[in-house]
C-alpha cells in the first residue's frame, strides 16, 4: 500500500461501509413490497469502495475530486430511489451508507477547496460549486432522514414534498407575494430608505440635528421596533398600508445612521481639493461626498432588504385581508398544513435572497472603484 494515502474521511467512510455490509438489507421488507434487492446495495457499496480507493491514490486532486463527486452523488441517488415510496422502513445500513456518502462528499469539498486554479472562470466556478455542494447535502440529508426514519409529515415534510406543494399552489403563492412584497415591502422600503436618506443629508448640513439624532438613531437600532406592528395596523387598517408603515419605521434608522457615517467618510485632502476648485456645497456633496458614502448607503440598503421583509410578514400576523405571506403562514400553521408553510418560507427565502442579490449587483456596478469590489486591499 505504499502508493496510497488515505484521508480521515475516507477511513471513516470505509468503516461505515463495512458496518453497513453487516446490517444489510437497506430497507425493511414490507408485507406487500417486494424483497429489497441485494444487487443495488452491492452496487452502492462497490461504488463507495472504488471512491475510497480512488481517493487514496496519487492522482491529481482535481481528478480525484471529480470521481468522488460522481460516486458519492450517484450512490446517494441510488439510496434514495431504494427508499422511495417506503417511508420509515430504513434500517441501520441505510443511515450508515448515507453517512459514508456524506463523508466522501466532504472529502470532495476538501479537495476542491485546496485547488488553486490559475484562470478566473475556474476560480469563480469553484467559488459557486463548493457552497452549492454544501447546500445540496443539507437538502439530501433532510430528505433522506425524513423519509428514512419516517418522520411524521406534520413535523417536518421532506424537501421533495415542499417542492411539489410549491408547484401545485403557484397562484396562491403569487397572490401572497404580490400582496406582501410588491405592495407592502417595496412601498415601505422606498419610502423608509428615502426618508432616512433625506434626513441624513439634513442632519449632515445642520450639525445640531446630527448631534441630537445620531445617538437616538444608534439607540433605536437596539430596540424591538417590530413591536409597533399592532399600533400601525390600528392606525392604517388591515390593508398593505399598515405593513408599509412598519417597513418605513424599520428601515428609516439604519439608513439614517449609515448615511450620516458615510457622508463623513471622504478625506480632508479631497474636501480641500474641492474647496480649491471653488465648488459650492451641492457640488461637493454630489461629486465627492455622496460617491464616497455609497458603500455605507449600500450597506444600509442591504440590511434594510432583510428588515423590510421581516417587518411586512410579521405585521401581517396582526391582521390582514385574506391574502399575504404572513397571513398564509399563520393560518396554515393553525390548520397543520406544514408543507404549505414551508412552501411560503421557501418563497420568502428566495425573495429575500433575490432582493439582497439585486442590491449587491447594483452595488458592484455603482461602487466599482471601491477596494472591496476591485479585489485589492484597502
Amino acid at each position, binding site marked *: 500500500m505504499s502508493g496510497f494515502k488515505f484521508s480521515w474521511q475516507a477511513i471513516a467512510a470505509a468503516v461505515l461501509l463495512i458496518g453497513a455490509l453487516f446490517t444489510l438489507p437497506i430497507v425493511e421488507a414490507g408485507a406487500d413490497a417486494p424483497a429489497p434487492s441485494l444487487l443495488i446495495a452491492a452496487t452502492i457499496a462497490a461504488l463507495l469502495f472504488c471512491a475510497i480507493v480512488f481517493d487514496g491514490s496519487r492522482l491529481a486532486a482535481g481528478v480525484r475530486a471529480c470521481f468522488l463527486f460522481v460516486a458519492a452523488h450517484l450512490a446517494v441517488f441510488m439510496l434514495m430511489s431504494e427508499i422511495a415510496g417506503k417511508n420509515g422502513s430504513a434500517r441501520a445500513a441505510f443511515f450508515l451508507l448515507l453517512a459514508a456518502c456524506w463523508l466522501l462528499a*466532504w472529502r470532495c*469539498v*476538501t479537495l*476542491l*477547496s*485546496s485547488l488553486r486554479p490559475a484562470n478566473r472562470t475556474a476560480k469563480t466556478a469553484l*467559488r459557486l460549486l*463548493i*457552497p452549492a*455542494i*454544501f*447546500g445540496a447535502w443539507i437538502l439530501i440529508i433532510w430528505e433522506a432522514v425524513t423519509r428514512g426514519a419516517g418522520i411524521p409529515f*406534520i*413535523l*417536518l415534510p421532506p424537501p421533495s414534498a415542499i417542492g411539489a406543494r410549491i408547484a401545485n399552489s403557484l397562484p396562491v403563492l403569487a397572490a401572497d407575494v404580490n400582496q406582501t412584497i410588491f405592495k407592502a415591502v417595496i412601498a415601505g422600503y422606498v419610502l423608509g430608505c428615502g426618508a432616512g436618506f433625506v434626513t441624513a443629508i439634513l442632519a449632515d448640513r445642520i450639525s*445640531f*440635528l446630527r*448631534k*441630537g*439624532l445620531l*445617538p*437616538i438613531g444608534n*439607540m433605536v*437600532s*437596539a*430596540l*424591538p421596533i*417590530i*413591536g*409597533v406592528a*399592532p*399600533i400601525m*395596523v*390600528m*392606525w392604517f387598517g388591515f390593508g398593505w398600508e399598515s405593513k408599509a408603515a412598519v417597513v418605513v419605521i424599520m428601515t428609516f434608522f439604519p439608513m439614517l445612521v449609515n448615511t450620516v457615517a458615510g457622508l463623513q467618510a471622504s478625506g480632508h485632502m479631497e474636501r480641500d481639493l474641492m474647496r480649491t476648485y471653488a465648488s459650492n456645497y451641492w457640488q461637493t456633496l454630489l461629486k465627492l461626498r455622496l460617491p464616497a458614502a455609497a458603500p455605507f448607503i449600500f450597506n444600509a440598503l442591504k440590511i434594510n*432588504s*432583510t428588515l423590510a*421583509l*421581516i417587518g411586512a*410578514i*410579521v405585521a401581517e*400576523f*396582526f391582521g390582514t385581508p385574506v391574502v399575504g*405571506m*404572513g397571513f398564509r*403562514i*399563520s393560518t396554515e*400553521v393553525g390548520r397543520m398544513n*406544514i408543507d404549505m*408553510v*414551508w412552501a*411560503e*418560507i421557501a418563497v*420568502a*427565502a428566495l425573495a*429575500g*435572497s433575490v*432582493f*439582497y442579490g439585486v442590491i449587491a449587483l447594483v452595488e458592484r456596478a455603482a461602487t466599482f472603484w471601491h477596494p472591496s469590489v476591485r479585489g485589492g486591499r484597502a
Partner: protein
Amino acid sequence: MDSLRAKIIPVTTILLGIVVAWYVLAVFMNAPFQRDLDRRGNVTSGTIEFIGKTLSQPKPIVPAPHQVAENVFENTFLRKITSNRSLVYHAGITLASTMMGFAFGTALGILIAVGIVHVLALDRSLMPWIIASQTIPILAIAPMIIVVLAAIGITGLLPKALISTYLSFFPVAVGMVKGLRSPEIMHLDLMHTYNASAWQTFWKLRVPASVPFLFASMKVAIAASLVGAIVGELPTGAVAGIGAKLLNASYFSNTIDMWAALVAGSVVALLLVGLVGFAGRIVDRSMGARPA
C-alpha cells in the same frame, strides 16, 4: 462641560421635540372621536377643556406620553411581581428566553467561527450559507417552529429560545471570524518562530485579539435575541411575555397597554445592550487594553 454641549443639549432638544410632536399627534388623532362623544352627550367644551379630554381617553388612538408613562409606572412599581398585569413579570418571562437564546447563539456563533477559521473546506462552503441564512425572514417561521415543537411535546422556553438563537448566532459568527483573523501576519509569524502549535496560537494570540470583536457583536446579538423572543411569543397564544402582552392589548384595542409593553421591551433592550457593553469594558480593562 464639553459633553454637555456636544451631546446632552442636542439629544434632549430632539427628544423634547419628539414628545411635543407626540402630544400634537395625540390631540389631532383623538379629536374626531372626542368630538363625536361630545355631540352625543350634548356637551360643549372650550378649547383647553377639549384638548384635556382628548389626552385622557381610556382607549385613545394615540395615547399621550403621560398616559403611557403612568401605565408603565403603575404596572412596574405598584403591582406585585407575580401579578399577571405586572410588566416586570412579563419582561422576566421574555428575558429568560432571550438570555437562553443568546447563550446558545453566542456559543454556536463562536463554534462556527472557530471552524471557519481553521478548516478551509468549512470556510469555502459554510460562509456563503451563513450570509444567505440571514436573508431568510426567519421571524416568519417563528410560529411554525413553536407549533411543531409543541406537537412533539417541547414547550416553554426552548422553542422561543431557538428563534433567538437563530437570530443571534449570525452577528457573533461573522464578528468572531473577523476577530480571530484580526492578528497581523507579523504576530502570526512571531508565534511561528516560537514554534507554537495551532492550539497555542489560538489561545494566546487569536482569542485575545478577538475579544473586542466578540463584545461588539454580542451587543448586536443580544438585541436581535430579544426581538426573536418577543416575536416568538406573538402568534401562538403564549400567555405571558412582552410579545403576548402586546398581542393581547391589540386584541382588546388597549392602546395604552400596547405602548406600555413597547416601552418595557425598549427598556429591557437598552439595559441588556448596556450590560453587554459594560461587561466588555471591564474585560477590556482587565486584559490590559489601553484606551484608544
